[in-house]
């Protein structure tokens, strides 16, 4: 990418990158994606370590790749490393951002999971899990809705919406393997039918 910055990073810069993601980790309630605006402010606007195009491509590639969405964080670190002109630095960058975004949250989450499992018969723990259930189920449906409605133009995008609705119906009512549906989506999209 022609607009990508060329960087020379010192030790303190790498530490700064790690520290920033360590701090973001505990703020990422609802997933790392909720801290995306802050990542953009830090990497693109403040430090100018990534171009806008690299930032957006990091998200798009992670979406297209199998695995948890949080991998977009690794790609941001990877691209910072690439901008220094070295593949080894790219690995370092990916390692630092992933360690940063995961270490605090997973530690806290692990301890909470152990605690809540040990005390699962407490009235307050049961009330929390049961009381949150309708909310987290609605959040799931909302996430799917928001992903689908990223396609804004009904006249052009109605086949995409139809595909989303048909997928939801098929998965709900049948036991078909999910990969078949993704393959159909890729083929329909690849041949320009949706």
């Amino acid at each position: 990418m022609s607009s990508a910055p060329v960087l020379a990073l010192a030790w303190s810069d790498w530490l700064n990158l790690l520290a920033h993601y360590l701090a973001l980790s505990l703020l990422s309630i609802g997933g790392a994606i909720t801290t995306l605006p802050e990542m953009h402010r830090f990497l693109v606007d403040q430090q100018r370590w990534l171009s806008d195009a690299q930032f957006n491509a990091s998200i798009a590639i992670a979406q297209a790749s199998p695995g948890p969405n949080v991998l977009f964080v690794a790609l941001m670190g990877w691209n910072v490393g690439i901008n220094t002109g070295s593949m080894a630095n790219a690995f370092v960058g990916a390692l630092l951002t992933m360690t940063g975004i995961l270490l605090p949250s997973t530690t806290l989450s692990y301890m909470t999971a152990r605690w809540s499992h040990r005390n699962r018969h407490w009235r307050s723990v049961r009330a929390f899990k049961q009381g949150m259930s309708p909310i987290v189920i609605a959040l799931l449906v909302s996430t799917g809705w928001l992903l689908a409605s990223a396609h804004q133009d009904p006249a052009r995008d109605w086949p995409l919406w139809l595909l989303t609705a048909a997928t939801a119906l098929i998965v709900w009512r049948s036991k078909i393997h999910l990969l078949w549906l993704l393959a159909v989506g890729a083929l329909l999209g690849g041949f320009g039918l949706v």
Partner: protein
Amino acid sequence: MEDSDHPQPQSLTDLFVSFTLLALQGFGGVLAVVQHELVERKRWLTREEFVEEWAVAQIMPGPNVVNLSLTIGARHFGLRGALAAMAGLLAVPLLLVLTLAVAYAHYGSHPYIVGALRGMGAVAAGLIIATGIKLASALKSNPLGIPACIALSAACFVAIALLRWPLAYVVLGLGGAGCVLAYRRLKP
């Protein structure tokens, strides 16, 4: 295993491989696959247990699916189980996404690729919606009662999906109300 209705992961390797395999099937997010594999195929968890663990995983900071893998791993093999499940979820997909980043630099603008990603994105959205609809059946046994569950779910959907309110307020407000209500309905 005397309880054949509720199988369990056999070993750390089983956890690692299971989570690797399900992560590799998850395009546009892994949650739909986690539910499909762990609840419907392997049956390590019932729908009710899954929703309860998911509630904790979602409220904690960090990627929800990573938190869920920690919880499930920890329940069977403690810290080692948590690490095995999380490593399974992340290791191979991480290598794959870095490979893809290199490939994308060369082929990312090809119209077939752009179209295929659009199509897969639409399917991924449908998978997540269906997962939510399926898990809703777990609410039948919820102490809140069905009318309260429907009201809370509907309000949450409207606030997040239609009004686009910030997640934190909605979770604190509606989730807090749900927890208080559940606390009062549960027998001490």
